[in-house]
């Protein structure tokens, strides 16, 4: 929308699309410091254990007992979801974002973080239907959107310390390649891309390796 007058007009009109007001910085900051709710508890407690943002009044100490129970419940539910997906239950398209930014830290006992397992479960579910997409030579927008979300998750995980583990890093990098190629399928609708992806998967044996690794990590 740069040179064409119509494009310029559209671009000007688009500026009012969901035009944001001034951000309520102080109000949001207060909420961040309070960080209520089960989903936030784990992050806040982790932070407070390290001591940044520690509340001198002892909010962390007061929050820990109930938050610990909530965290255990959440982890249990996540593990259940991840296991269900691996055995073939269709993945919920909303799942990647829920796992998201947990950024998958390695627990102290060296086992895989449950949210990493959840991510891997979603990756497995997505890859299972990849051959169908290639056979159909039609990139389903929903499928591409899921691949896109997972690619975002993959990048986040690659930034996390857990990805320093060579096996997981290699797996994530393979997944990144595959997902990036899937995402490109929608970019120009070029049928040649399907063929190239198919050849790449076959020649490099990527799909079975990723599947095996995913199953291995989830079973870990």
């Amino acid at each position, binding site marked *: 929308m740069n040179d064409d007058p119509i494009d310029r007009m559209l671009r000007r009109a688009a500026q*009012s699309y969901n035009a944001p007001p001034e951000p309520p910085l102080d109000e949001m900051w207060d909420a961040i410091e309070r960080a209520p709710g089960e989903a936030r508890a784990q992050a806040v407690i982790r932070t407070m254990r390290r001591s940044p943002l520690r509340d001198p009044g002892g909010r962390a100490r007061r929050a820990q007992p109930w938050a610990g129970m909530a965290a255990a419940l959440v982890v249990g539910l996540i593990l259940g979801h991840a296991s269900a997906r691996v055995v073939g239950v269709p993945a919920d398209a909303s799942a990647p974002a829920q796992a998201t930014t947990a950024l998958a830290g390695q627990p102290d006992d060296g086992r895989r973080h449950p949210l990493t397992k959840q991510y891997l479960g979603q990756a497995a579910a997505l890859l299972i239907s990849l051959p169908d997409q290639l056979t159909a030579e039609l990139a389903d927008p929903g499928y591409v959107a899921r691949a896109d979300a997972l*690619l975002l998750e993959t990048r986040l995980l690659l930034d*996390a310390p857990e990805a320093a583990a060579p096996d997981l890093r290699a797996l994530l990098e393979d997944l990144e390649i595959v997902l990036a190629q899937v995402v490109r399928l929608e970019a120009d609708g070029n049928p040649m891309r399907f063929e190239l992806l198919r050849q790449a998967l076959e020649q490099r044996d990527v799909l079975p390796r990723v599947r095996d690794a995913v199953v291995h990590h989830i079973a870990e």
Partner: protein
Amino acid sequence: MEIPLATESASRVAEPELIARVLAGDRVAARELYDVHAPRVYRLAFRLTGDEELARESTQDVFVRAFGQLDRFRGEAALATWLHRITLSVVSGLMRKVKRMRERHVPLEERHAIDHGADGADPVLRDRLHREIDALPEIYRVTLIMHDIEGYTHVEIAEVLGVAVGTCKSRLHLARAKLRAALGDLTKELEE
């Protein structure tokens, strides 16, 4: 035009130091980091959600997560890029939940109750355009909002989304083409 991610703030140079201070428990540093990045995170969240409460909720969630996991931030990407990735992920999860709730409980028209006009554009075109942007597939909508509305560069968007720059450009091209096609009748009238 928005400030590029790469030069978001003068304090960017000192950002690693700021992060270290946050990790050492410095609340002032945490607030400073927040003040640098929160406005853009909020803007993007608002553009994507179109809702003050959702934008506020998303921004809070982004920073709670970011502070909780700051020790895991390795600095391979800029902090702003990392925060924007989290933002897109948080917003996308939130919007899916909200969409499901709205489909069950709220007529679609109510989403357009807030009019932030005053851009000098034809109101009919503007209204139609907003609806057509809403209707774009999310991967196109995000790219269009980030590039054409919020002024991110293709390189920045590609980094945040984890896709190639070419993919980003292609998505933008397709998004614009879809809008032009959808608004074909109106744009012809306005052209005359």
